[in-house]
């Protein structure tokens, strides 16, 4: 069996490796920046309808916190 390493998988792997090996334990009182509203690890509420039109106008969908099923969007 041969394993192909594409540039994308290499990039993702590198990021995950760096992330996994450089974690430090951050205390609650040190999270003023992490807890900033703009740092929330999800799509913004104002992106809600943008994510709907990506779903309708593009074939690829999911894994972005947006709508993943239900409804047609066939207009």
């Amino acid at each position, binding site marked *: 069996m041969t394993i192909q390493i594409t540039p994308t998988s290499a990039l993702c792997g590198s990021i995950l490796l760096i992330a996994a090996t450089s*974690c430090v334990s951050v205390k609650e009182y040190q999270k003023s920046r992490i807890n900033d509203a703009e740092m929330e690890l999800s799509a913004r509420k104002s992106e809600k309808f943008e994510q709907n039109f990506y779903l309708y106008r593009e074939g690829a969908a*999911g894994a972005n916190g947006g709508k993943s*099923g*239900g409804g047609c969007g066939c207009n």
Partner: protein
Amino acid sequence: MKKICLSVGLLLSLMKVGYAQTEQKPAYETRKLKVEEINLVSSYYQQDGNNSAVTGGVGSEKLTDLAQSFDLVLKGIDRKNRQHTLNFDFNIDHYTSASSDQIDPLTVSSASRSDTHIYPSISWSIHNDANRTTKGISLAYSTEYDYKSYGINLSFAKASADNNREVSLKAGAFFDTWKVILPAELRPDGYGSGAHGDTDPVDYKPRNSYNASLSVSQVINKRLQVLFVVEPAFQQGLLSTPFHRIYFKDGSETVERLPGSRLKLPVGFRLHYFAGDRVIVRAFYRYYIDDWGMQAHTINLEAPIKLTSFVSVSPFYRFSHQTAVKYFAAYGQHSLTERYYTSDYDISGFNSQFMGTGIRMAPPGGVLGIGHLQSVELRYGHYIRSAGTGMIANSITFLAKIK
């Protein structure tokens, strides 16, 4: 006698202490559900292009959509010190579509020239601080003129002891029913148009979707956090759109035909970094693959810049590249020997770009001095898609957060 008095006094004082102990307030207090926040989102979207699937891959794609969302979040704490969150989300959008008007071009106004799409949902989650878990359930409903959907989602998340890592699992199912409206010239004898007042019957077909999601988020340091998510999805039922026309090489015509199932595998990675004191970098990448032959790469970059402590601007740029599904061909390019065929440019191969900016204001005393109006946000974006002869779209969104 003295001894008896002392003993009784001591006993009484001990009882008092014991009683006082039972009267002590617990370390937490129950709190009834109360409004935590309300988000009002209004959006206007318009697009134009010349590759409509309704007319076989040629013709106007002009569309406007006006959408409104009302999102109410209630929170409370129960006797076991668990936090309950109840979320009501009501969405409505009204669209007008030039291409949908071509389903039945002989009528003055066809069934789908314009439509109103209503999709409410209700979610309930319980967060337990003691074991750092969150369990949730949500129910969703969606209705359009020719489409109905019922959905259910379950979720479970567990955080690490230091709250720097969270693993989350989700599973969902959507059960949809589609009214099969065919192009006017392709209806068999006695088959209805689907319009109000037409007593001729039309078919109804199911389309079901099943999703699962596994995500892991991690705080890397005081400024950086990341999220990795994999979200497989499986669809089955009527996955083609029955009013999409196909024109073959010999000039004959039929309706779009696609396989009855589709397996999708998107993998996402999100990285948010607080640089310095004023700039935040929000980066998102997604790789997507499905069993119809499509692969896609999407990258989204956004950089909120805090101009003051309560005003920020957020320029953003999104690039997406996708390959066509193996059943796609342009107008008049399909051959009669093919088993499946579509001329829908939404699932063709193209690059798309979406760019724009947002501005957010969250003054300490409330926007315009209105205490409960915590923040407002205005966001504009311009979308360019290279498919066919090209398509452009514009989107403007206004968000008001009330707390």
